[in-house]
C-alpha cells in the first residue's frame, strides 16, 4: 500500500492565530478522511472569513484541541522555531506475536504535514508607546498586522484548496472503508514536535520503521 505524503504550504502565523489556523486545517483533513457516516458541521473562523467543515465527531474535536494546546506550549518554549504538525492515517494490522509484545502494527497510508512559522508580535511598538513617534509606530504596526492577517487568510485558503486538490488527486491509496461505527473510518494520529527536536526526529524515524514503508515522499 502506498503511503502518500502531503506537505502543506508554510503558514506564517502569530501566536494567537495558531489555534484557529490549526483547527481549520486539521479538521478539514480529517473531514476528508472521515468516510463513515458524517454529519458535517461547518465552522466560521473568527479571525478569518473562512468557513471550514468538521466531521462532527466530538472525540476528534477534543483530540485536535489537545494537540493544539500541546503545540502552543511547545511554541512558547521554542520561539522562533518552525513547528511542524503531522497528521497521519493508518490501518491497523494484527501482527503475529513476536518477542515484541506489541501485536498491533500500524500501517500508515498518509501523512499530512502542516508547517507553521510562528512569528513574534512586534511588541516593541506597544511597549513604549508614549511618545508620539511611538504611537505612529504602533499605528503602523497595527496596519501591518491587518495586512499580514489578510495575507494569512489568503494563504490559509490556499492551504485548504491544497488539501482539497490532494484529496482529489490521490484517491487510490485510501484503504477500503472498514466497517466502523461513527464518522471516523480510519485511525489517525497527530504528532507535534516534542520537547526536543531530536526526539521529534526520532519519532519520525521510529514511525517509518514501524510502517515498514518509508515510501514515496512526494
Amino acid at each position, binding site marked *: 500500500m502506498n503511503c502518500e505524503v502531503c506537505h502543506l504550504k508554510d503558514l506564517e502565523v502569530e501566536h494567537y492565530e495558531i489555534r484557529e489556523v490549526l483547527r481549520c486545517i486539521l479538521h478539514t483533513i480529517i473531514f476528508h478522511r472521515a*468516510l463513515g457516516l458524517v*454529519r458535517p458541521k461547518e465552522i466560521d473562523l473568527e479571525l478569518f472569513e473562512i*468557513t471550514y467543515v468538521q466531521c462532527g465527531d466530538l472525540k476528534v474535536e477534543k483530540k485536535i484541541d489537545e494537540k493544539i494546546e500541546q503545540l502552543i506550549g511547545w511554541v512558547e518554549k521554542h520561539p522562533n522555531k518552525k513547528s511542524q504538525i503531522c497528521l497521519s492515517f493508518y490501518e491497523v494490522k494484527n501482527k503475529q506475536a513476536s518477542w515484541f509484545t506489541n501485536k498491533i502494527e500500524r500501517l500508515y497510508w498518509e501523512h499530512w504535514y502542516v508547517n507553521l512559522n510562528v512569528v513574534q508580535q512586534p511588541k516593541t511598538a506597544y511597549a513604549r508607546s508614549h511618545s508620539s513617534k511611538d504611537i505612529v509606530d504602533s499605528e503602523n504596526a497595527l496596519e501591518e498586522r491587518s495586512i499580514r492577517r489578510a495575507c494569512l487568510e489568503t494563504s490559509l485558503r490556499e492551504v485548504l*484548496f491544497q488539501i*482539497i486538490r490532494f484529496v482529489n488527486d490521490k484517491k487510490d491509496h485510501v484503504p477500503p472503508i472498514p466497517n466502523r461505527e461513527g464518522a471516523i473510518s480510519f485511525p489517525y494520529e497527530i504528532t507535534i514536535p516534542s520537547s526536543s527536536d531530536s526526539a521529534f526526529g526520532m519519532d519520525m524515524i521510529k514511525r517509518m520503521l514501524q510502517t515498514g514503508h518509508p515510501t514515496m515522499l512526494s
Partner: protein
Amino acid sequence: MASSHSDSARMEQIITEFFAKSLHIILESRSPYRSSRNFSGEQAFSSPSSSTSSSSSVRPRDKWFNLALREFPEALENLDLWRQSNHEPMIVDVILIKRSLDWDSVKLSPKPELIKNALSKDVYPNCWDFGNDDVGRGGKKEKIVERWVVQYEVKKSKDCQRGGKRSGCNVLSSFYKKSMLLLRSLYATVRLLPAYKIFRDLYLSGHIRSFSLGHRVSSFVEPFTRKEEAEMQRFGFTPVDTSCGRLCLSVQYRSSVSDISSEPSTPLSPPQLIQDYVGSPLADPLKRFPLLPVTHGSPSSVPFSRRHSWSYDQCRASPPFATCSPSPAHSEPYTSASNPTMSRLPPPGLPPHPPDTLHGPKDVASLDECYPSPIYSPSPSASPPIFIPESQLSKVLLRSESAPVNIPGLRFHNNPAIFKNQILSPSPPLREARYEVLRSYKTLGPSQTGETYETVLHGKKHLKRLSGMTSAELAFHDDFDETEYTCPFDVEDDDMAEPGSRLESFDQKGLVYEQLDPGAYLPVRKSTGAAVGALVDLLNKAPPLRQDSSISVPTSQTSGVNTCASSFPEPNQSCTEMPVKEFAPCVMASTIHVSRTASDAFEELQAYKEMKNMLLSQCEGPCNQLAYLARRMLV
C-alpha cells in the same frame, strides 16, 4: 453476465445518487431554502450544534455516501431528468440577483421579497422566469456567479465492455469510495468559494441586502460570453473513473463576487439592521409624497417598525446625536431611536445601504429635505421610539400657527421667546445642515463652541453677516434642541415651569445671549453659518409685531401665514409677502414693550429680502432646502 448487469445497475444508481447528493450539497449552501443555521426548522439540523445531536435519526438518503445533509426537498424535486438518465449533464447556475434602480414597488419589508425572489428560481430546464414579477420593474440584474457541472461521461461501448469484464465488487466499492471523497471535497469547496460569503451574508447573518441568490438547474449549458468567461475561474475536481466512463464535477466561479457582497456587508449591529431593512428610503412608498402632510401624520400611528421605515431618511440625514436629549426637530425621535448606534456609525454621509441600491445620497437627501418637519417633531424624552399619538399630532398641527410663547419673569425677558422659537423651530430643510453643525459642535466641545458665538449684533448688520453663511450652518440653533428642551409640543404643558433652567442649559452649552435691545438684537454667532440658522429660525418663529400682551401661548410652530395674520399689518406689505416678524420678546406681555416703528420693520424686511435673495442664489441642487427655506420665510 448477470452480475455485471447488476453491477452496472448499481453503478447507475450510485451515479444517480451522486447527482442528487452533489445538487443537494450545492443548493444547501447557496439557496435560502434551507434557511440557514439561524433558523430552527423541523429539519434535522437547524444549526451546526444540533446537527450532531440529531445523529440518532439516519434517513436512508443520508446513508448514501455516508454523508448526512440537512433536509432539502427542493433539491430532490429537480432530479427527475437525471433519475431517468445519467447521461445528461446537470448544470447548476448560482445567480446573484441585484436589485438596483427602481424600488418603487418594493414593499416596505424587503426581506420576504428577497427570499421570494431567491426562491422563485426556475427549476428545470429552460425556464428563465426567475423572479418574473420583478423583471418588469427593471430593477434587477442577474449575474451568474457560479456554474457547477456534474456530468457522467460515458466511454465508448468497447471500452465499457472491456471495463465491464473487469468490473466487480472491488471496482464498484472503489468507485463508491472515490465518489464519497469527491463529495466531501465538494462539500468543503462550496464553502470556500466566494459565493458562499454572499450566501452567508444573506441568509445566515440576518442582514438584508440589495441582492439575493437564486439558482437554476438545467441539463444544458447556456454558454458564457467571452467577457463572462474571462471573469470566471475554474476549479475542476478530479474525475472519478468507472469502468464505463467517468464522473466529472467542475465549477466555474466568479472570484470578484466577493466585492459585490462586501460593499454592503460591513457587519451591522442590530439597530443598523433595522434601518437598513425597513428604513430603506427606496423601500418607502411614503417618500414619494413627502409634501403631503397626511402622509406624515399617518405614519405616527403605525407600528414602531413601520415608523422606522419611513423615518429612515431622517435618521440618516440627521446627526448622530450622542445625547438623547429631547429635541423639537421632527427628526429627533427617529434619530434618537438610532442614537446608540448612530454615534458609533460612520458619518451619515455613509448610509448603511448598499450603495448600489440608491440613487445616491444626494437624491435621498433631497427627498428628505422636502419633509415639512413640524408634524414629526416632538419626542421630548430621551426614549427615542416614542411617537406622538395621532391626537397629539393633530393638536400639534392645529397649534402650529400659534404665537410664540412668552415667558415672564426671566432674566432675559426678551430672550425666552427667542429661545423658545428657536427650540420650536422645525427648520425642516436644515436637518442635514444641523447635522454638520452639531458634529462640529461635538468636536469642539461646548465651551469652545460657546466662544465662537458672538453675543449680539445690532440691526441689519447681522443680516449682512448672515449673507455669507452656508446652508450647513443655518441650523446650528437646533443644537439647542438637543440640550434639554422637551418636545416643542409639550411646551404648553410644561414649558413655563422651568424657563430658567433652560436658559441655564444654554449657558452650559456656552451659548451666550445678551439682553437685546428691543427687537434689535439677535443671538448671532461668530461662526458664520450658525447665525444663519438662528436667524432663519427666528424668522420662522418670530411673534407678530403686535400681539395681545395677555396672550402667552406656547408656540409650537409658526407658519408664516399665521404669524402674518396675527401680526401687525405693515404698511406696504401684504401678508403673504411679509415675513416681518418682530422679535418676540418685545411684544410679549410682561416683557419690555418695544417701540418699533413701521419703518424699522420695513428696514428689516428689506434686509430679510436681501438675505432671501442671497440664499436663493446659493441654491443649487442639493441646496434646494434653502430655496424651500426662503420660500417659507416669505410665505
